[in-house]
């Protein structure tokens, strides 16, 4: 089958043929059983695609859309506005707090040159001897 004729056949479904091309295709269709078969195949294919298309989302789609819109919409009444501003305020406090903790940790590490958790938190490093000589041990001895 000629490539050009086949191309015209495909184009004919979208109504894009000139009068001359249409005549050429019609002549060829009248003459060639293979071309008629091909036309039928394309019709079947196009029909299958049109019929096979899904036309709906999962159930309650409109409700989900409206819910998403309600969630995205700025608060309307006073109580909602208060809750949203409270949420925003705490978000800012949390952000400032986290930044402060990070800066303090870096400052402590730089100051003490100690990369341990105690160093980062600025806690004094105690040796084993210091722990054993602590007032708690003395109290235990007295008790014994």
């Amino acid at each position, binding site marked *: 089958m000629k490539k050009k004729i086949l191309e015209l056949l495909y184009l004919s479904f979208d109504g894009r043929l000139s009068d001359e091309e249409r005549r050429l295709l019609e002549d060829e269709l009248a003459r060639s059983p293979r071309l008629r078969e091909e036309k039928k195949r394309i019709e079947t294919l196009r029909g299958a695609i049109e019929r096979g*298309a899904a036309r709906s989302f999962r159930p309650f789609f409109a409700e989900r859309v409206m819910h998403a819109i309600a969630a995205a919409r700025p608060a309307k009444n006073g109580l909602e506005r208060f809750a949203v501003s409270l949420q925003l305020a705490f978000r800012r406090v949390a952000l400032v707090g986290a930044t402060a903790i990070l800066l303090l940790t870096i400052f402590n590490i730089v100051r003490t040159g100690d990369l341990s958790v105690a160093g980062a938190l600025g806690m004094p490093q105690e040796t084993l001897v210091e722990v054993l000589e602590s007032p708690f041990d003395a109290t235990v001895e007295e008790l014994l």
Partner: protein
Amino acid sequence: MDDHLTDEKLIRQAREGDDEAFRGLVRRYESLVAGTVIGMLGQCPEADDVGQETFLRLYRSLKNFRGESKLGTYLTRIAINLSLNELKRRKRRMGLFFGKPVEEIRGIADPRADAGTNEDKEVVHRAIGQLEARFRSVIVLRLIDGYSTEETSKILKIPVGTVLSRLSRAQKKLKTLLTSYYGA
């Protein structure tokens, strides 16, 4: 309930804050948007998300919607762009982890393998899923949504000649993929 109202009237009411009017628009255009999005992405949770996002975008742009194009065409344009973005994201994601696009993984390699199940929709979607995004979009707009070649060209912002050549190539590929199933 809103069946007798025109799109313009529903849009005007929705602009004034009438949620029921907007719900009416969603119901009216759900099938059109579903055809586009599911045609592009297949039946998957992301399709539902993209569908919702399409209507959310419409809601946000209600004030600016001047009705220069039909509402259906406007929604289709949003839906097709969001679907193409989702396909790009999928491709990037799958390329990152597996080194090949998702279509090859999700779809079956050969839709003819399912020829005996008689599940037309599934088979057609799998076959469409085998096409590259640029071919898929013309098939969806032209054959599923029923837009003319001129409308398809405007929605995709490509020349009519390109639409026609992509349509022709896509149909040839689909014919090969669906040959034994439809006896095409």
